[in-house]
């Protein structure tokens, strides 16, 4: 008795009921494809986040307001705070740009667009955030001083509002206030969960006048003189702000470096990936249970055939082998198709994320699918092998 002959019996068993075999295979296919695809989406999200944060530069600190201790009122971050961060006390700091952000709707002609982020800041902001111009110019320090209604828009905003026309010099209504477009930023691409190009940047003063009012700043973006100077800059910023806000205990602001931001965001996306992967793993498990189910039905249906085989001298091992091979072929076939479906699916952008296929996840999903056949097929197969020949032959 050779393995090849037993495998031939298994193949004949599977092809005898093609629809059923196909549907069982589909269960594994979906499981494997979703493992590969969802892990790829998770990977894509985290690499996009890493790229966008790395794109900001390695010498950036972000100061943002934080709720104060109970009983104390938090002091707002102000333009004066931002100004105080650059000076003799802080030799490591190159710039400190005050930032406010708002939700805004822009209209040009009949077209309207909800801008993802409307930012008010100073000209240094562009340098700090590694933003480069595609068309037109930036606004100047003078524009900030005079609170001129000028705006630099991101590429998404440009294509949404000005399809086919040059936006530079056009007047756009932002929350019904006219702004002149002076420049368009070069596209940066999606930063994971949000579109980094769906933004508009206007002078801080104008934004505060027109949109946000004169409350606390959303952020102060601090650029250190170099990446090496970053720890010094962080210490100096903390000292200055502690002094200005008269902090003794917990601060009412937070200073975060790109590194820390990266770590935090990476941890978030890793959680996200694990979550996706476990959903996918559950669907693979369900596919495996489908195999057990179908193999149990198959064995029950073919009890008589098993009896005949035993009567003509089939040893237990060959019956066990036949049904194990049937189950494993189902899962391997499903696994192979699932790998193909997962890899093909990963070529498309999903929810704004370009999935990145992890080769180890492909290997793992395929290996697991093969093991699933063995594991979930072993119970039905051993039941078939244990059948007593006389009882099996008597079965109707």
């Amino acid at each position, binding site marked *: *008795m*050779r393995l090849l*002959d037993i495998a031939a*019996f298994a193949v*004949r068993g599977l092809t*005898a009921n093609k629809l059923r075999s196909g549907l069982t295979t589909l269960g594994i296919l979906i499981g494997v494809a979703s493992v590969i695809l969802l892990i790829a989406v998770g990977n894509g999200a985290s690499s996009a986040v890493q790229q966008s944060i790395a794109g900001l530069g390695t010498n950036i600190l972000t100061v943002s307001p934080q709720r104060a201790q109970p009983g104390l009122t938090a002091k707002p971050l102000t333009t004066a705070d931002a100004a105080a961060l650059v000076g003799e006390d802080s030799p490591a700091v190159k710039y400190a740009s005050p930032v406010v952000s708002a939700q805004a709707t822009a209209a040009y002609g009949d077209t309207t667009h909800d801008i993802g982020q409307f930012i008010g800041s100073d000209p240094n902001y562009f340098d700090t955030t590694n933003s480069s111009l595609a068309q037109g110019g930036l606004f100047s320090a003078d524009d900030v001083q005079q609170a001129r209604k000028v705006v630099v828009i991101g590429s998404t905003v440009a294509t949404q509002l000005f399809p086919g026309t040059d936006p530079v010099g056009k007047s756009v209504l932002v929350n019904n206030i006219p702004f002149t477009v002076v420049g368009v930023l070069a596209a940066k691409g999606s930063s994971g969960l949000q579109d980094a190009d769906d933004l508009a940047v206007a002078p801080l003063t104008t934004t505060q006048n027109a949109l946000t009012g004169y409350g606390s700043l959303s952020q102060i973006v601090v650029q250190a003189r170099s990446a090496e100077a970053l720890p010094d800059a962080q210490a100096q910023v903390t000292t200055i702000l502690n002094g200005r806000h008269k902090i003794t205990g917990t601060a009412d602001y937070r200073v975060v470096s790109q590194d820390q931001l990266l770590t935090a965001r990476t941890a978030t996306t890793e959680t996200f990936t694990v979550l996706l992967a476990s959903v996918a793993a559950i669907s693979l498990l369900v596919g495996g249970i489908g195999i057990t189910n179908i193999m149990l039905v198959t064995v029950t249906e073919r009890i*008589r*055939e098993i*009896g*005949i*085989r*035993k*009567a*003509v*001298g*089939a*040893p*237990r*091992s*060959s019956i066990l082998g036949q049904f194990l091979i049937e189950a494993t072929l189902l899962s391997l076939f499903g696994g192979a198709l699932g790998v193909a479906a997962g890899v093909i699916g990963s070529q498309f952008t999903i929810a704004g994320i370009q999935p990145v296929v992890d080769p180890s996840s492909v290997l793992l999903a395929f290996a697991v699918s093969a093991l699933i056949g063995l594991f979930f097929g072993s119970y039905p197969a051993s039941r078939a092998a244990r059948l007593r*020949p*006389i009882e099996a*032959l008597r079965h109707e």
Partner: protein
Amino acid sequence: MSPVIECRNLRKTYGSGDTAVHALRGLDLTVEKGEYLAIMGASGSGKSTLLNILGCLDVPTSGQYLLDGIDTGEFDEEQLSLLRNRKIGFVFQSFNLVPRTTALANVELPLVYAGVRRAQRRDRALAALDLVGLKDRTHHRPNELSGGQQQRVAIARALVTSPAIVLADEPTGNLDTDSSREVMGILDRLHASGRTVVLITHEDDVAAHATRTVRVVDGAVAEVMV
């Protein structure tokens, strides 16, 4: 030379205690090589139990069964299946062919489990089908064959391994008169060519084909007719 079958004081009991059923109660039977034996008996007499034991599908509760000189008493499930494969050819009342599988593949089946190579398997299966007059039906599936043809395929399958004994359990029970005659004709020819055939039946005219008939009553051989 030892007999093909030698049963000594075979007992088979199902269940235990008060509800125990004694299917065989100390049965003795000897079948010589080349014999054509018919076993008769009413239903419930224990003849099916006897056939299952003779065919190594079941084991006796006590007693000794020597098949072709081999004591089957100490054999485990795995060794019994090997014995079934090498020494026994089964013909059942209900044919028991593997469905959706060609006549040729059905006849090849025991050879697959015997580990015979593909080409040789095919030759031997074709020869066996030729012997039962079905050379032109090799690629038909059971549902495309008549009852008589199916039983002839089953006989070919029983023969193909050249077993020590062919066991037929009411081989004509599900067949019409013409098909019965064909099947019995084949069994007669097997006997004529020197094979040992043991037949279970409750029809006298079927038993008349055999050279010897034994009657099983209440789990023991009651009378021997020659």
